[in-house]
C-alpha cells in the first residue's frame, strides 16, 4: 500500500550558517554497513576550507563577546534540539555503522549529555583556571583564560556523533570559533547535527562543518595562517609529525585528546595576565 517515494536529503557543507555545496563540485559515496548506497556528501576543497575560516574569523569577536551565561544557554539549546531529533540520529547511526539500536541510542544519549556537561563549563572554567597572583609589590595582578581564536579540528572517525560533540563543544564553549572536518566514512551525523546548530541560536560562522578526506584537508588546515589551533584527535598518529611541522609556520597550538575533561577546554585558551598599580 505504501508506494510513496521518500524524499532523500542532500548532504551539503555547513559554512557561515548556510548549507552550500562544495565549490569544487566533488562528492564521494557513502554506503551503509550492508553496502547499500546512502548519500553523496561533499568532498570539501581547499577553497571551502578557506571560506569556512573566513566565516569563523568574522564570527569570533561576537561569539567571544557573548557572556558565559549566554554561551552556556546556547550549548544547552544544542542539547535540547538534539534530544528532540534523537530518532533521526539513531536511525542514521544504525544505517551507516550497522550497530544495534541499543548502541545507537546510547551514543545519542551520551552526545546529548555531553553537550549539557560542556554547557555548564562556560561560566566555571575562568574561576577554576584564573588566578589572582600575589606579586611582591603594590600591583593588582590577575590571570584569566581567554579564547584562542579560530580553531580547526579533525573529528574522530568513530563514534561519529559523540566524537564530533566531544570535538566541537570544548572548543566553542570558551568563545573560539571552529572549522571541523566530520568523520569521512560516517558523515551523516555531523551534517544532520549542522541542522541542530542552525536551529539553536548558535551565531552563523561559529561552527563550520566540512566533509571530505582527512589526508587532503588536514595539511591545508595545518598550513593555513589564520588558524590559531588544531585538534588532531581524529588523525592517526602516523600523520601527526607532518601536521605539526606544517603547523609550526605560525606556531599553531596542536593537540590530540584521549578524554573529555576541562583540560580539553583549556588547551584552546590563552592565559592573559594583567597588571595594574595600586595607590592613591
Amino acid at each position: 500500500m505504501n508506494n510513496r517515494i521518500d524524499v532523500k536529503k542532500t548532504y551539503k557543507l555547513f559554512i557561515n550558517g548556510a548549507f552550500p555545496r562544495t565549490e569544487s563540485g566533488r562528492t564521494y559515496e557513502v554506503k551503509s554497513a550492508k553496502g547499500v548506497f546512502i548519500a553523496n556528501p561533499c568532498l570539501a576543497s581547499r577553497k571551502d576550507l578557506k571560506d569556512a575560516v573566513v566565516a569563523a574569523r568574522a564570527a569570533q569577536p561576537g561569539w567571544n563577546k557573548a557572556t558565559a551565561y549566554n554561551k552556556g544557554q546556547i550549548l544547552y539549546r544544542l542539547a535540547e534540539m538534539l534530544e528532540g531529533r534523537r530518532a533521526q540520529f539513531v536511525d542514521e547511526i544504525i544505517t551507516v555503522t550497522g550497530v544495534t539500536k541499543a548502541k545507537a541510542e546510547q551514543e545519542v544519549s551520551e552526545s546529548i549529555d555531553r553537550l549539557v556537561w560542556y554547557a555548564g563549563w562556560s561560566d566555571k572554567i575562568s574561576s577554576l583556571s584564573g588566578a589572582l597572583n600575589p606579586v611582591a609589590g603594590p600591583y593588582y595582578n590577575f590571570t584569566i583564560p581567554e579564547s584562542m581564536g579560530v580553531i580547526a579540528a579533525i573529528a574522530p572517525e568513530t563514534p561519529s556523533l559523540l566524537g564530533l560533540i566531544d570535538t566541537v563543544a570544548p572548543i566553542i564553549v570558551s568563545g573560539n570559533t571552529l572549522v571541523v572536518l566530520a568523520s569521512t566514512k560516517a558523515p551523516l551525523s555531523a551534517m544532520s547535527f549542522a541542522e541542530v546548530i542552525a536551529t539553536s541560536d548558535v551565531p552563523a560562522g561559529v561552527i563550520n562543518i566540512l566533509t571530505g578526506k582527512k589526508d587532503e584537508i588536514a595539511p591545508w588546515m595545518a598550513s593555513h595562517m589564520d588558524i590559531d589551533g588544531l585538534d588532531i584527535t581524529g588523525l592517526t598518529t602516523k600523520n601527526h609529525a607532518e601536521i605539526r611541522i606544517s603547523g609550526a609556520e605560525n606556531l599553531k597550538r596542536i593537540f590530540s585528546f584521549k578524554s573529555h575533561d576541562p583540560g580539553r577546554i583549556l588547551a584552546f585558551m590563552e592565559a592573559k595576565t594583567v597588571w595594574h598599580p595600586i595607590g592613591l
Partner: protein
Amino acid sequence: MEIPVSFDYAPAPESRAIVSIKPKYGHFIAGKFVAGSKHFPTINPATEEVLSHIALAGKAEVDAAVKAARKAYTTTWSKMSGKERGKYLFRIARIMQERAREFAVLETLDNGKPIRESRDVDVPLAAAHFFYHAGWADKLEFAGLGTSTKPHGVAGQIIPWNFPLLMLAWKVAPALAAGNTVVLKPAESTSLTALLFAEVCQQAELPAGVVNIVTGDGSTGALIVNHPGIDKIAFTGSTDVGKIIARAVASTPKSVTLELGGKAANIIFEDAALDEAVEGIVNGIFFNQGHVCCAGSRLILQESIADEVLEKLKVRMAKIRVGDPMDKNTDVGAINSKEQLTKIIELTAAGDAEGAQRWSAPCELPTKGFWFAPTIFTGVTQAHRIAREEIFGPVLSVLTFRTPQEAIDKANNTPFGLSAGVWSEKGSRILWATQQLRAGVVWANTFNKFDPTSPFGGYKESGWGREGGRHGLSAYLKGVGHE
C-alpha cells in the same frame, strides 16, 4: 639666586673585586666541572675586554650531560619526596641571595646591562623564582592541574643572553620543583653567571646530575633539541629559532614550551597621566637596552596628545644616562654583542629608508664596546619593517590613532602577542583595552613588571606555554589533559 642649569653626576663605579673570573671554563656535568675540548672567548660588551674562554660542547659533552641527568632522575630526584626537593630549592634561593652582589657584578660585566638593573631586578628576581617554586615542590597535587600529573623526566633548556641568570631561574626552578632534572645551555655570549650558578648547586649539595650545564652556541642547542634522551624542551629566544625547534621535535614525543619574540604595543590614551606614561614609555623600551622580548617597542599615541607626549619624551630621553654599565647611575648600558648592534643598525636604516623620521637622544657614546643611543622613529606606518620586526634594541617606533578601536586594531596587527601596555586614568577603558589586546601579559599604567607568581608568555607567534605562577608549573608536568 641663580640656579645652576644642571648638575653633573660624579662617577659611581661598582667594584668588580667581588668576582673572580677564571681564564677558562668547562661544563658542569654530574655535579662536577669537566674540562671542555674547544673554547671561544666571552667579552665584556662595554669594553670588548676578553673576560674568559667558554667551552663549546659537542656531541660527547651533551651526551654525558643527558646521561647524568637521566641517572639523577631515575636514581635520585624522581624518588625523592617533594618536601626534600623543595628544601634544595630553598637552599639555592638563599645562596643566591647571599651571593647576590657577586652575581650582579658578573652579570653586568658579561652582559653589558647596567649594574642598577642586574642588582635590583635580575638577581633578586632570580632568587625569588627559586624561593617561589621551592614551595610548590611538595604541593603539586593541589595545583589544580589534574590528579595524575608526573614530571617529564629530563628537560633540555636553552636560554637567551638578555637576562642570563633570570632566564636560568625561570627555567631551572619550575623544572626541579616539578621533579625533572635538567640540561641547561646558556647563551653563547653570556655563560658566566650560569657557571657561577653551578657553584651554587654544589654549595647547596644538590644531588649530582640534577642540574647539568653545557656551554656553547646554536650547534650545542641543536644537539640538545635533537637528543633522544631528552623528554622536554624549554626554549627562550627568537621566533625563527622557536619554529625550527617546533619542527625538529614534531615527530618525537617531546613536550615543548617556547618563549619567543614580541613587538608590544604601548597605547597611550588622551586621558592618561602623561608624566607617568612618559616614564612608562621609557621603562618599556629602554629597560635593558631594549633587549627585552616584551619591550614596549611600538608606541601607539592618541593623536590629540601625540605632540605633547613626544615633546615630553624627548626631554626625558635627553636625561637618560648611557654608558659604563658598572656605574650605578647608568640607565642604559652596552648592546650585548657586535652581531646584535649590526642588526639594530640594519633595521633602523630600514626605518630611514622607508620614510620614518629618526630622533636620537643627544648622548656621548663610549668609543670602545657596542653602543646605540636611545632612539625614536615618528611617522611610522604599520607596513614599515620597524613596526613589524623585533629590533631588540633601544629603538621605539611611534604610531598614532584617533579612536580606541583603531588603537586596538593597530596593537593587534602583528604576528606576535607577548605583551602590551595601556595608559588611561579611566578604569572601564583600561579593562576594555586589556580585554581587546591579544597578548599574554598586559601592563596597565605600568610596564615591564615581573614576578614569579605572575604567569608570563605569549599568544600567537610569541610562543607556547607560560612561565611563572600556577600556570607555569604545567609546562613541567605531563598528564595535564592534552598532549
